[in-house]
């Protein structure tokens, strides 16, 4: 970790009330900052299933178009095209607004 430098990979983790975790990991190119992959790891039973980046039209994260959905799976990997489809092309797109997790 270095002050002022975005980690690569960039990892965000949350735990639910029973300490079950969901983690999203973004790998990105240090050359052009483009995303090369994203992976969602989710503990069995974790209440949170979706990674929510940014806010939706109603001002809540729940309606954002930039959502990585686990659909109940333990591991989900997204490719650059899949990420581009939800408006995530570079690591700056990930960190520019806000990140949280939802049901």
């Amino acid at each position, binding site marked *: *970790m270095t002050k*002022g*430098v975005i980690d690569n990979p960039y990892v965000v*983790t*949350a735990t639910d009330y029973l300490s079950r975790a969901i983690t999203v990991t973004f790998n990105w190119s240090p050359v052009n900052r483009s995303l090369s992959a994203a992976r969602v790891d989710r503990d069995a039973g974790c209440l949170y299933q979706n990674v929510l980046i940014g806010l939706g039209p109603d001002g809540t*994260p729940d309606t954002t178009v930039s959502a990585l959905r686990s659909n109940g799976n333990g591991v989900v990997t997204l490719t650059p095209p899949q990420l581009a489809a939800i408006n995530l092309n570079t690591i700056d797109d990930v960190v520019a607004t*806000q990140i*949280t997790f*939802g049901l």
Partner: protein
Amino acid sequence: MALAIDASSPAVATSSTATSTTASHTPPAGSLSLDLWSGNTHTAHNPATPTITDNLGAHLTYTLNDWQSRADSPNREGQAADWTAPVATSAAMTVSATSGVAAGDSEKHNALQVQVITGQHATPVGAHGKSGSASASTIAQSYTATATGSQGFIAVCDWTVAGTMTAGTGCTLIAQGSVAGQFNYGFFRRTTADGTSGGTTTLNVNIGGTSTDLEWTYVEIVPAGGGSTVNATATIAGAGSLTSAVVQQVTASLTGAGALTAPARLSSGTALVGVGALSSAVVQGSGGVPTGAGGLAVTAVQGVTAAMVGAGVLNAPAVQGVRATPAGVGALTAPAVQASGAVLAGSGALAAAATQGSGASLVGAGVLLAAGSVPGAGTAALSGAGALSASATQLAGVALVGLGVLTGAAAGQVSGVAALVGAGVLTINLNDCVITRPFAGVTSRPGSGSTTRPNTGITDDPC
């Protein structure tokens, strides 16, 4: 009712804008929204107070418990805060916290962790505070818990970005991470609601490296009700400290060395068997008994016995039918009132204001100061060597059985007895009426106030 983290608690929200917004969640009615927050600061810029709100039509009422920023000692970068808000009605909601960004400041990064808590007290916040550090790799934030069954939470900002934060002893991670490499946030709680009233609770956090810019706030959430009740037993067999609010036929026992603090009521017993200190307000039929060496401070009321068997100090105001008895070496200070007995069986000093049928007795050597002044058949007796000073009135008796000095003001009263059985000095006020046992050949001096029982040829001086 025990505290619990509710399943409706939303995940951490992190943001590079000024505002972090949680996902929609529906806390139950009567719950508490505990909002932990950590934020960035711009070097040498003091931020304004962060704010919080929700998307409800009628917003919750948020109370900022603490906010620590670079404006506070030790004046390090970063900031942390926590709020609480009671949830009266269950409804889907998001919570948003906004950094009070300083003018011209682009450092807006922050993180918000909402914990929905149930089982909290109507006044849910106990101990709370804030602090910081200019150099630390761990945090051990201690506070004195205000209630048994309470739970501690801490919000941390590591502006240095020293490493990955982890939970220390007794604590559990809620969330930690970095916001775009600008600062690290960490939210932790005590793993269980293990607070004990009057005891020390510590929130332990490992920073993952040495940070020179740490800021944090902490808060104790208090449960509804709480404490030990009916027929419960709180026992610590080893060394340590036991703080117990024991109520109704409860026993709190500390067998080893340490300290026991126990307000015991209604037929309760507080016992310190080993060495240490027992501080116990025992009321109504309760007994506070330390059998080892140490100190006992007992307020014993109504039919209570406060007894210290070992050496030490017993300070017991004993009232109504009560006995305050230290059998070992030490000191007893006991204002004993109404048919009470204050008895020091060992050596030491006894100061007792014994009134109305009370007796103050010092069996061993020492000093007995007893004001048996108000009335009625009180007895002040010193059986061993020493000094007895007693103003005994109205059928009261002051007696010095052993060697020593007896000063007895048996003044103006009815048939008071001042007796010196052994060798020593008996001082009698000149105006007192003292009647000695008959001795042949003793003649009182008229007007002296002293006279003998009638003997042949002796005329009493009326007094």
